């Protein structure tokens, strides 16, 4: 009891600390001072009156949203004596693996640098700065020579690293038993099974209305859709919105709801901050910029849905790589930002900088995290804020090695376990023909299905990611897709043929698949 109380007060203290530095705090202070003018505020009951005032004027709600937001993002502190690395990642072998993976990435980046004799960063000459400023809204028309650049890594390289992860303390013996895991991931992490998933995703059940199913043309809107839209329009509370969105978000409300859940409100300070980042982009050129250009050209520009938004992608990603506020998320990310040293001062800590400034090195397909958001947000600074928040809450887990239940390792293990447990024949068949299912589904999960599903379906899926504050649904969907195409997959005799069966997901309807897999399959 005492432990819980002290935990709680620790959390409260941390959140208060965090919020004290925020804009909301100064706004509340200003409001409190201004409210002293009001007749209903009496000196004798000052505290209560001001609290009442906050409640009525909606400021309490804003504060509630901010606190809720902090709670969602910040992991709970464990033992008070735990060192900070444990917040990043409690398991030693995972930390080590992440460390050596990072070394490899950096080596690759550095060698590309020396091969091409391009500095990691340089200041742009004034003429170039002016030119870039003029073309800021149409950077897509630029066609720089990117043939010599290669993406630093692709998802399949990362998969190889995950396959080789081993827990040195775990010995499961050489003999095969029913406990043996037949998939590629061989680390013993706890993942949920279908009964647990059913409990977790209870709002996706068969007897509960869903957008993505119960808003189709055959279903009369009075049954579910109208009421759901009406409720959605009234929402101002982050926590309630998060609960609401588990049943999907109406198209017209989605942009606002996501902003509410992520606690993004476009204040003038935010716009100013974005402009500042834009200035940084104009003034300095980073090697990472070319990687971003290359990625956008290779992926989003070639996509039938997203080619229109090419310019927005540059505007977001180039600014993102200069945003040092992103560094704060490394406190709970198993990854660490790469360090670079000013030329000639290698090893001297005073001359160390993080490179890129936000510590995130983009890989092949990174721009696809941003592309679907362009559908919802058109104002660059708001689009930027939403993306940044989505990244530090969810996306970073998809490309760093950790034991977190939403981390990519757990997702892979969850996917394989679901398949092995509930579709054993299919799993065994695919394994026999050399088509381990994870080899096909890995790329879907790393990109959170962006670029594989139709946009409206993808947005319905991301609604649930926000609603449940977890990425586990990606693994469940991947398994559901395999279940759906099981008949065809049983016929194939090679990895290439299996890939072909699963090449096109653009016609899939996400919610029926998830519902059937979780709630309608006899287990």
């Amino acid at each position, binding site marked *: 009891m005492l432990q819980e109380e002290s935990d709680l007060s620790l959390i409260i203290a941390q959140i208060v600390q965090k919020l004290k530095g925020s804009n909301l705090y100064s706004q509340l202070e200003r409001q409190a001072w201004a409210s002293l003018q009001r007749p209903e505020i009496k000196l004798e009951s000052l505290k209560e009156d001001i609290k009442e005032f906050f409640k009525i004027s909606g400021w309490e709600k804003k504060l509630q949203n901010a606190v809720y937001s902090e709670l969602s993002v910040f992991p709970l502190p464990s033992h008070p004596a735990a060192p900070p690395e444990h917040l990043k990642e409690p398991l030693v072998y995972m930390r080590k693996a992440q460390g050596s993976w990072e070394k490899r990435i950096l080596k690759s980046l550095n060698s590309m640098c020396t091969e091409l004799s391009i500095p990691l960063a340089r200041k742009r000459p004034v003429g170039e700065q002016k030119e870039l400023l003029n073309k800021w809204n149409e950077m897509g028309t630029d066609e720089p020579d990117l043939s010599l650049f290669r993406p630093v890594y692709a998802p399949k390289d990362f998969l190889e690293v995950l396959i080789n992860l081993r827990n040195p303390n775990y010995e499961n013996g050489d003999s095969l038993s029913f406990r043996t895991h037949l998939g590629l991931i061989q680390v013993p992490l706890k993942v949920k099974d279908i009964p647990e998933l059913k409990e977790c995703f209870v709002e996706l059940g068969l007897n509960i209305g869903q957008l993505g199913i119960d808003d*189709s043309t055959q279903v009369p809107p009075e049954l579910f859709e109208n009421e759901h839209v009406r409720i959605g329009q009234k929402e101002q509370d982050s926590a309630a919105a998060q609960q609401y969105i588990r049943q999907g978000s109406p198209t017209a409300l989605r942009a606002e709801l996501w902003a509410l859940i992520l606690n993004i409100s476009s204040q003038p300070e935010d716009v100013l901050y974005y402009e500042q980042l834009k200035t940084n982009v104009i003034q300095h050129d980073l090697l990472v910029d070319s990687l971003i250009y290359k990625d956008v050209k290779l992926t989003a520009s070639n996509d039938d*849905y997203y080619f229109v938004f090419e310019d927005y992608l540059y505007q977001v990603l180039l600014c993102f790589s200069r945003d040092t506020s992103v560094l704060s998320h490394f406190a709970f990310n198993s990854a660490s930002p790469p360090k670079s040293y000013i030329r000639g001062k290698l090893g001297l800590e005073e001359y160390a900088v993080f490179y890129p400034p936000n510590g995130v090195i983009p890989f092949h397909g990174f721009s696809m995290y941003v592309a679907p958001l362009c*559908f919802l947000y058109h104002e660059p600074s708001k689009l930027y804020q939403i993306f940044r928040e989505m990244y530090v809450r969810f996306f970073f887990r998809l490309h760093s090695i950790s034991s977190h239940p939403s981390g990519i390792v757990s997702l892979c293990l969850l996917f394989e376990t679901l398949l092995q447990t509930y579709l054993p024949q299919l799993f065994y068949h695919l394994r026999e023909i050399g088509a381990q299912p994870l080899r096909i589904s890995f790329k879907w999960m790393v990109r959170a299905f962006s670029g594989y599903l139709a946009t409206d379906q993808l947005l319905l899926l991301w609604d649930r990611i926000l609603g449940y504050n977890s990425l586990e649904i990606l693994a469940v969907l991947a398994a559901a897709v395999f279940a759906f195409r099981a008949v065809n997959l049983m016929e194939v005799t090679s990895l290439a043929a299996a890939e072909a069966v699963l090449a096109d997901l653009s016609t899939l309807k996400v919610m029926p698949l998830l519902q059937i897999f979780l709630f309608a399959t006899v287990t």
Partner: protein
Amino acid sequence: MNTLMDVLRHRPGWVEVKDEGEWDFYWCDVSWLRENFDHTYMDEHVRISHFRNHYDLTRKNYMVKNLKRFRKQLEREAGKLEAAKCDFFPKTFEMPCEYHLFVEEFRKNPGITWIMKPDTRSSDDQKDDIPVENYVAQRYIENPYLIGGRKFDLRVYVLVMSYIPLRAWLYRDGFARFSNTRFTLNSIDDQYVHLTNVAVQKTSPDYHPKKGCKWTLQRFRQYLASKHGPEAVETLFRDIDNIFVKSLQSVQKVIISNKHCFELYGYDILIDQDLKPWLLEVNASPSLTASSQEDYELKTCLLEDTLHVVDMEARLRQRSEETTEAALLLPSSSEESFQLIPSCQEEISLSRPCV
């Protein structure tokens, strides 16, 4: 990728006839029509894919005349408000005969930009014998709706089975065609910026065939709905439906009605920043070559459903029926994808797939 040949060849029971053979169905060129229609005998059941004087709808100068006349009539009969519904065609002057009127208009409104368009041949129509001698000067829409900084237009398909009575079908799918470069009035000389036909875009140095620069109408609706809300989208599409109805009504009495004829039109619609749709052009021979896999699927489905509505199978069956036995009724129209546009007397209530 020729969609038409693929669809026709795959249709069960259909046989391709060459040259002088007898045919029941002909998807013809407008040039063939012009030369042969008047002295070709056609049995009752025979169908051909153009109306004799389709140019009353598809040539801009004729379209303008017909629309103006119809508008006057509407104003007399139903008042100014109703007539204003015909204001979807940008002001157009035929050259060279309306040159003086054009100059007057030009002087009255000096800031406006005008675009000169050739009138006989559009890139969609096949090679024409008539040399391009006519032009129209059309008011240029300077505030087009932009997506991602790019200009686009909508291509929608309307199948007219007859003019008297007016029976027209609207295809549920269509696409938005994007210009490959960013829209700006500064580069008014750059034809690639302004002309969004894929045929023109294909010659632009920026064009990458993989991109296709097209969105399906569904995707376009979703994008608009998430930006402006579903009501605004419904209003926009109702206004677009109004364009079809009014344009067809305006030529209803002019087009030579012939039971053998049907026509699949490609309507080009431009949306401006106030979400008002403008009619740019009606094509009697919309391009049926596909620029991508998605495009191929759209066009083959379009053609298949067109053939379902035309329903040669039922007509041939009726023809060969000697007895009065009831023939097996196959569905004679694909209700899924084509929708009958009710005539102007009834209230228009087209339902679209939900966004």
